[in-house]
Every structure is written in C-alpha cells, then in structure tokens.
C-alpha cells in the first residue's frame, strides 16, 4: 500500500470519529442515543451491536453495488441490514439476557437507524468494499464514543456508578432526572454545546492566523 492510499484510508477512518461524528456533528440516530444511554454498559452494548451491523452491511452493500438495480437499492439495503440485525439480536440474547432486556426493542430498531442506511446510500454504494468497511468502522467507533459520552455522564450522576462500579460510596444522592428522558436531552445538549464551543474556538484561531499572515 502506498503512502498516499494509506493516508486516504486513515482519513476515511478518522472521518467518522471526529469530523463527521454521527452523534455530535451529524446528530443522527438520536433514538438509541437518547433512549438506551441510561448506563455506560447499555451504551457500550448498543454501540457495539450497531457497529457490527454497520460494518457488515456496508461491506455487503459495497460488494453488491454493481449488480443491484438503482430502482430497488433501498429495499436491498434494508434486507441486508435486517439480516445482520437479526444475527445481532440472537447473539445478544444468547450472550446476556440482562443486556437484551435492558436494550429492549432498540436492538430490532437498529434496522431503521439512519446512520446505517445513510452510510450504505452515501458511501458504501459508491466505494470498494475495503474503503467502505474502514469508513463504516470509523463511523461506528464515533457512534460508540458518542453513546459512551452520554452513558457515562448519565450513569455517574444518575446512579453514582460507572459500568456498575460504585464511585462515591453508599451515601451518594442520585440525580433522578438523569435516568429519565429529560436527562438524556440535557446531557446531549451539554455535549453539543461543548463541541460547538470547541469548533468555534478553533475557527477563531484559524481566522486569527490567516489574519496574521495577511498582515
């Protein structure tokens, strides 16, 4: 692999983690993001389940990109995604019934997660399999990071634990609102605020640099 293509691959990978982060930049897939991030464990399992479906379905969609007629492509994507979601659904049920019960219908709802369909339509159907899967891997890592960012804050404040480990002792006062739906919106808003503040700061710095060069 030449240096250029390696740099391109790395760029494809990093795009989903930072520049096009599905949670914090594109604000896609809000339904699982808000609903299952009550604890860090839930967030992580949801993220990994979505990652598996995203990577596999993007690979398959990319392989079939030249034989699927344009008119039926969305239906084909949905069938492919649904296949992998069924696999994930059974696997989670077999591995941990507790996680399966905690995530509930949101595992099946991965089928309609717009990150996956969006990637299949916008990227996988136009790129070779390796590139598509690398990009999907970056996207799913970005999604896992986003879910974990919400899940850890909500679990630490809402229950005083992190991945089930008590952080503050028995006398901790839980913030009830954090495990309720409003808590999800408040924490998501907080993270979006932080990222937009960082972005604005960076833009201001770049503008100042350019101004400096001009003078």
């Amino acid at each position: 692999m030449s240096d250029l293509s390696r740099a391109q691959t790395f760029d494809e990978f990093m795009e989903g983690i930072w520049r096009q982060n599905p949670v914090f930049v594109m604000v896609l897939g809000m339904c699982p993001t808000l609903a299952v991030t009550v604890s860090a464990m839930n967030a992580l399992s949801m993220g990994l389940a979505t990652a598996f479906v995203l990577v596999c379905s993007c690979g398959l969609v990319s392989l079939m990109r030249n034989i699927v007629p344009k008119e039926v492509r969305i239906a084909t994507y949905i069938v492919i995604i649904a296949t992998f979601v069924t696999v994930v659904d059974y696997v989670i049920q077999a591995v941990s019934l507790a996680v399966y019960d905690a995530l509930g219908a949101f595992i099946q709802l991965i089928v309609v997660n717009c990150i996956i369909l969006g990637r299949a339509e916008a990227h996988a159907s136009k790129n070779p399999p390796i590139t598509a899967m690398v990009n999907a891997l970056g996207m799913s890592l970005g999604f896992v990071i986003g879910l974990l960012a919400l899940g850890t804050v909500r679990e630490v404040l809402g229950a005083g634990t992190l991945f089930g480990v008590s952080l503050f002792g028995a006398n901790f006062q839980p913030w009830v609102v954090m495990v309720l739906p409003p808590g999800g919106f408040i924490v998501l808003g907080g993270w979006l605020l932080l990222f937009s503040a960082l972005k604005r700061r960076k833009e201001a710095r770049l503008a100042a640099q350019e101004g400096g060069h001009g003078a």
Partner: protein
Amino acid sequence: MNATTEIRSAPHIKGPRSVEQIMANVVYSLLPVCAFFIYQYGLSAAASILVVTASCLFAERAFVRTGTQAGSLSDFSATITGLLLALTLPPGFPLWMGAVAGIASIALGKAIFGGIGFNVFNPALVGRAFVQAAFPAAIATYTPSFLAGRFTEFIPSSLAWPLMAPADTAAWLKAMQYDTLASASPLARWKFEGFVTPAWDLVTSLTGHMAVGPSPLLIVLCGAYLALRRFMDWRIPVAVLGSAGLSALLIYAAFGTRFPDPFFMLFSGGLILGAVYMATDMATSPVTPRGMWAYGALIGVMTVVIRYYSGLPEGVMYAILIGNAATPLIERITQPTPFGKGASIQARRQGSYTLHPDYISREEAGAKTPKKRFLKNKPKKP
C-alpha cells in the same frame, strides 16, 4: 459639525427607566421578604439565600463572558433569580443542591435562550423544576419554622457534602421533641392528612412552628410598593389570585366537604409569592393588558387544578411555567387594533360582496377575462 446619523428600528420613544433601575427596585422589595425568611429559619435560610444567589451570579458571569450574549451582573437580573429561587426552596435544602439549582436556572432557563430578555420561561422556576426532577425527596422535606436554636445551628440536611445524600431531619427533630408530622408543609398536610390550617395563621406565618415560606401579607405589601411605583403590572397578580380564589370557591361551593376553603388555597404554599414576583416577570408575561388578564387567569386555574387533581401537593410552579409557554400565543390573539384599522374592518364587514364572475380565477373554464380595474399591471401584449 461632526454629527452622526443613527438608524434604529422601533421603539423610538424611550422612557427614563432602565432595566437596571427596575431590577434594582425588585431586589430592594425582596429584601424584607428574605429577612423574614431568615427570621423564620435562621442560619440555614441565610446560607441557602447566599449560596443560591452566588451560584446564579457565577453562572451568569460565566455565560456572559464566554457567550455572545448581552447583559452583565450589574443589571441585578441574576440576583433576582437567585433570591426568588432560594425563597421557593425548603430552608433545609442541601446547599450543594441549591448551587446546582442556581446554575441550572441560569444555564437552562436563561443562557440557552440568549440571555436577559430572551428567556421564554421564568429562570428561577426552571431551576426549581430541574431540582424537583433531580432530587424529589430533598425538595419535599420541610422543617418547622421558629425552632429554638435556629440562629446558632444549621438544619442538618443543609450541610450535606456535595453529591452526597442529606442527613435525615426527622431524627434531628425527634431529638428536639418536635412532632415530625407537624413539619410537613400546610399543603402536604391537607393533601395527605386532610388537615386544613386556619387561613389567618397562614397570612402572618407567625403562629406556631408551621413549615411555611415568608408571610403572604409581607409579600403583598412589598408587591404593592412595586405596583404603586409602576415597576410591576398589578393586573397579573390580581388575575392570578382572583381566578385561583374564584375557582377554589366554585369547587368549595359544589363539593365543600372534600376540598378546603378558598382562603386556605390563596394563602398556602407559594401562590402569593408566585403571583406577585414570578408570574410578573417582564420577559415571560404578555405585554397586552387583555393578555395579562388571560395569562393570570390561566395560571390561577391551573394552580387549583394541579393542587386538587394531581399527585403533587403544590402546583404554582408548573402553572406559571405553563402560563409562560402560552404567553406568545396569548399575545398573538390579544393584539390591540392599530390606530385607524378598526374603522376600516367595520366598514368592510358591513359591505356585501355578491359572487361575480370577476372574482373567479382565469383558469376556471368559462370564466370571463377580468376587467382592467382588477389587473392594474396587466402585461402589455408585444
């Protein structure tokens, strides 16, 4: 001459009053109420007022500095939010939770809408709603007023470590030989025990060891000062209290045995404080006089409905937040008629318009071409 022309949008006529002046007067009028609160509950109340107000000011400073919003600490608006928030919280509310409430009120209630004047909801009530959702047990824990050692020791729940659960006040009260049942607020006692506190005791707040806020009489006097100096519109508190009293009276007249008398409803809980100081917040209440009446009536009725028919003993906070949410709508339907417009509307209503082919659009089959007077800018044929 070095004259500059300034181009501005309306309003062009300015009164001599500034935001700072109005806000400062509201703060002055709140000081006696705060003093009474400290007299009732001692050290804990004083610490609560200080910590909550300081956290509001801190949050305001942080947002004004980092954001692009207008406003500054010297306009006193964050001070008012802090004082009002502290007055609505129980005196033994843990101080760290008070700080959370203060920061939440400025951040969620004010800063995200764009700062002073842009907020949709009353910031103090947003802060209180946040801690009500986050710490429902602590916010329902009241302690009796006028305890013997109130100026020398804190209520134990005040001094909880940050993030830690507050100490149990029931055991502390038991050690001081107070009946723990008497430490519930009058509204909670009515809701859960059916005990109606006499209204006159509630008006002064001075009798016995009732777990109540500052005296409604004092709040009304302080509000009257503001209303007389025209820093506050008298219509809103009158509408709130009038509609709450009237609806309570109607329900009392219909099913008297199950519900308390209207005077108890008026003077218990935070209704007077809410009607005088929170519903009248200028940014979140209607500006039209008819709208003020509608807004106040909505809040009063909602308060009584929530108190009587919901699981919560107190409903003023949610009633005012609902009123705030309805404010843009109320303002829209109570727009006064602009000068000169009323007559023309009346004239047009009186005129009659029969169906005439000229009104039918040209696309319709068989319609005549409209006469020239309806198409003044008719394109000329080339």
